[in-house]
């Protein structure tokens, strides 16, 4: 087992929930409320220096009772040691965990992808938008086990929505505001926006 586990236990005590080894790699479960603190410690403490964020992802098990896990895959470039940190988010509560964009900028897109695919909210993320699916995607979060393989809507409904989308729906509100600020939008576009015709932006609470 990776010696970092012992160091973490003496430093953080109960925030380290458990440690296990699978296929030769050590992974630990931590208290989700203290993820940023622990990851920051792992990144900067001499002797640990897990300075390379390999990946952020999430896992949902087939057993609906089990919590969703957020997985941080770390690697120490100085010591050539991998380390996996996981945090369990129980399903009954809101799926929230602190963002670590302030530690690694790479977390920006990775957390957006996890949000997009699993609906996990990363608090204090600077720009938490969908990334692979489009902004007005209303079918939920595709990698959740409750999401059917072929999507929630029928093919005809998907086609209907795609054909009915307004041209300006291809631009985010932020982009439209840049355009509007500098040279104004065409009157037609403005009208449609005023009427709120951007398509339905899904409310994750309702969908899940």
């Amino acid at each position, binding site marked *: 087992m990776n010696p970092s586990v012992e160091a973490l236990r003496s430093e953080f005590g109960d925030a380290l929930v458990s440690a296990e080894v699978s296929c030769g790699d050590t992974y630990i479960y931590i208290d989700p409320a203290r993820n940023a603190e622990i990851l920051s410690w792992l990144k900067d403490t001499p002797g640990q220096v897990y300075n390379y964020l390999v990946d952020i992802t999430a896992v949902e098990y087939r057993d609906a009772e089990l919590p969703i896990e957020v997985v941080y895959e770390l690697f120490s470039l100085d010591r050539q040691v991998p380390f996996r940190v996981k945090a369990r988010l129980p399903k009954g509560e809101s799926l929230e965990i602190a963002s670590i964009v302030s530690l690694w900028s790479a977390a920006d897109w990775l957390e957006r992808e996890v949000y997009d695919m699993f609906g996990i909210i990363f608090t204090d993320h600077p720009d938490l938008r969908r990334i*692979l699916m489009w902004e007005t995607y209303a079918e939920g979060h595709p990698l959740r086990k409750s999401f059917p393989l072929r999507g929630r809507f029928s093919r005809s409904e998907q086609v209907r929505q795609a054909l009915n989308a307004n041209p300006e729906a291809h631009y985010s509100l932020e982009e439209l505001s840049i355009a509007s600020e500098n040279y104004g939008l065409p009157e037609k576009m403005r009208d449609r926006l005023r009427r709120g015709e951007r398509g339905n932006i899904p409310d994750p609470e309702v969908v899940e």
Partner: protein
Amino acid sequence: MAKRTLEVDLATTGVDAQGNPITLPLGVDADAAAQASDGPALAGEHMLINIGPQHPATHGVLRLVVELDGEVVVRVIPHVGYLHSGFEKLGEYRYYNQLIPLTDRMDYLAPMSNNVCLAMAAEKLMGVEITERCKVLRVIACETNRIISHLVWLGTTSIDMGAFTPFLWCFQQRERIYDLQEMWTGARLTTSLTRIGGLMADIPDGFEDGLREFCKTFPKTIQEVDSILSNNGIWCGRTQGVGIFTAEQALDYSLSGPLLRASGVAYDVRKDRPYLDYETYDFDIPLGERGDVYDRYMVRLEELRQSTRILEQALDRLPDGPINVDDPRITLPPKSAAMSDMEAMIFHFKQVMEGIPAPVGEAYFSLEGPKGELGYYFVSDGTAKPVRWRVRPPSFINLAALPAMCEGRLLSDMIAINASIDIVMGEVDR
């Protein structure tokens, strides 16, 4: 790696150190602008332009919404997902061996690297030890694919910068590897080479000679490209000092592959987390000094030479023996045995119908793909289908750094920077 012998810094023409434009855009009368200097017509007027998703310079269905101040990029907002196919979701409904055709379609410029990575990740999860011959053949698969991927990058990037000839040279050489791939697997792009515990097929007669011939003649092409580009004034002007990323920035953005090494960080999965006995091969990791587009070009050019070196060593050591592990639960019996032998038929049936169950656990395996660290992460609950199949896509993570590299530069530099990242949208979107 060759040192830069020519230094040209044309790319910042028209922009001062802070990124503010110092020359007027075309079509603006200098005298009139000087008269109206108290309130220049263009000051503060930003323009929003849309590039892609169908645009040759975005190297795939990438869409960039760019806010411009004159010709200077103020903001880049990338939109990805046009090629999203839900492979990770599909993987949860497939047996491990059935995932292999999906991996071809991710990084389709280096399908064999993906095939090998998937098989290795599943083998790590299942605790399977592959044979010696299989290891060497997989090294050959990975390195030939690094070569074709870098050749596509070199060819298309040189077209982006206005040089057409290297494109033809590169694609000509790439075709030779494709001929070999076709010989081996029957397919050029969708190779589906590996199986859990081995390979789909052993190399055919003539493959070794063909590859040796390639290794002998290919360095000449690298030399030609080197001599036409490395000291070319236009090439240097478009690439030197453009898109500079320091080592700290590169680590902050978790860049990997040639992009990270061009910034001077010596992280290569082949050296730092060796797999397939890479530690026994003799090769060097080229490093850049400044982290600009030119360094990325130099690193990739040198990697082509190093991959050729590895291929030669692999061919020299290629042992005889089986390519698949000797375990009827993992390796599919030969068709002739399945048709005539009762036991073989049962194993064949069970494997095809029930898949190969993996023990409860999880495994992350990564290898040095042409674009960077390609990693597959499996979580298993003991059945023959993964609970979660995660791809660590190097292109996706590298692309996330594009806005930080481009902002404050000219629009034309953005094309060079985007090309230098070497994305493949199949992998970004998965």
